[in-house]
């Protein structure tokens, strides 16, 4: 970490002034609501009689007991989709950063082009792509490659593929930024020291780009495992995820305490997972992000 040495007293105040507006915004609209939600999750009651604060932990136990399998499925889908995103995003970002030449930003832009189309529209059109007689499965079925009973829609595969497609940019951007920052002279130095292409990649480029991958994993895994739109549009009733449950509890059943408890459980599970993952990975960037 380079440290700018301010020469005047005014420089001491600079970081505070720079951070203040965002800080206030985050405090008012992120931290306070969180606290209120936790408080809500410990209440009992219903819409008609109103809710009372009873510090009722039962909401959590009931929630985990009833929907445990949904939690597990959400995390599993999240893992699969995140892995698929890395497999697709890393080579693409690598190619743009190192082979893009003068048109780097153009290529990046082209890659992100589909994502200017609305997320919902994308998901619905993905459904059209995956339908039994759609552009992908139709020809395969007619040519007899696929058995008649073969479906993708309303399966876990459909949900994971939709998630992968939808959240790809969250993986591409951070990896690209990290790769782009790598000083090419360092890579050349590796070659000068008789590193093969594989060695140069494994010993120089990959370690330097890991912070980007790490950020990408968080940016992808979290929204993916808590998403409910893909599961609803592509998965059918057999493949619902925890997000679907939370949404239903809030809007259809108005069971605010239960829904809050489930939301908080989801966040806690994901946060614990991320911290464990950060610990194992142990890159400097991670520890910094975790505020240690």
């Amino acid at each position: 970490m380079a440290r700018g040495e301010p020469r005047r007293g005014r420089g001491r105040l600079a970081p505070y002034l720079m951070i203040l507006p965002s800080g206030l915004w985050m405090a008012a609209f992120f931290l306070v609501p969180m606290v209120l939600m936790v408080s809500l999750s410990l209440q009992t009651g219903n819409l008609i009689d109103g809710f009372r604060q009873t510090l009722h932990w039962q909401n959590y136990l009931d929630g985990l007991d009833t929907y445990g399998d949904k939690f597990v499925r959400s995390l599993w889908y999240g893992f699969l989709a995140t892995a698929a995103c890395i497999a697709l995003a890393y080579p693409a970002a690598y190619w743009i950063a190192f082979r893009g030449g003068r048109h780097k930003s153009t290529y990046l832009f082209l890659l992100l082009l589909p994502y200017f189309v609305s997320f919902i529209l994308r998901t619905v059109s993905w459904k059209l792509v995956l339908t039994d007689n759609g552009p992908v499965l139709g020809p395969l079925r007619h040519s007899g490659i696929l058995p008649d009973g073969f479906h993708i829609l309303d399966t876990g595969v459909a949900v994971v593929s939709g998630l992968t497609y939808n959240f790809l940019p969250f993986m591409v951007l951070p990896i690209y930024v990290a790769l782009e920052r790598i000083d090419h002279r360092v890579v050349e130095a590796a070659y000068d020291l008789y590193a093969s292409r594989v060695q140069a990649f494994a010993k120089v480029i990959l370690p330097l780009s890991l912070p980007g991958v790490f950020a990408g994993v968080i940016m992808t895994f979290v929204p993916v495992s808590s998403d409910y739109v893909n599961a609803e549009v592509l998965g059918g009733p057999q493949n619902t995820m925890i997000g679907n449950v939370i949404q239903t509890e809030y809007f259809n059943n108005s069971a605010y305490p239960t829904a809050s408890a489930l939301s908080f459980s989801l966040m806690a599970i994901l946060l614990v997972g991320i911290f464990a993952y950060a610990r194992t990975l142990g890159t400097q960037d991670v520890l910094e992000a975790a505020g240690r």
Partner: protein
Amino acid sequence: MILFGFNDTRGKQNFEWQGFTLKWYRHLFDKSDLTTAVVNSLTIALLSTLITTVLGTFAGLALGRYRFRGKGSTNLVLFMAISCPEIVMGASLLSMFVTFNLPRGYLTILVAHVMFSIAFVAVTVRARVVGLDPAVEEAAQDLGAGPWTRFRLVTLPMIMPGVLAGALLAFVLSIDDFVITNFTSGATVTFPLWIYGSTRTGTPPQVNVMGTLIFAVGILIAVVSARRNIRAAR
């Protein structure tokens, strides 16, 4: 993969290709509620991107450049905001608005969008700042540049790729957001909400046209801002 995305978006419009027509463009504004939704989406996305990019860039700069009291906790909050599932944010904001009896609508959506985009922009910018050499700015200072000049002519061009990526991300996040908007919208409808509501009854062709136009506008904004930045960097 690029082609793939194209296929998909084009496929949506050609799925049942009945011949080329501009009819739907003529009837584009027939559904006034859809038009309102699109206008809401666009203005919210633009405002949110603007506010977020400014706030997030300064936060990212501060975090990447200085050491100060509370840096750890600031990082932790940003980290949490990024690690926090959308549905949880939406739920918590809803809890707050319900608790304080705040009417939900346009402003609450905007506030929510800025809130969840700040962390992404700040982290993207910070990643860029950490890789910079502070000596360059000190040189500018030695050459008599004031803080504003220093920022405009030295710092900003250097961190521009990060700022741009952040702004792009903020825009895409906002225009696309369905989950948090769903929780904070009240009676105000944005484009994604409208589409979601229409999938049950059948999506009218105007949606595809609007989708195409938003797509085009989004690209236009990105291209124009990229050009401006390239020029500024020179």
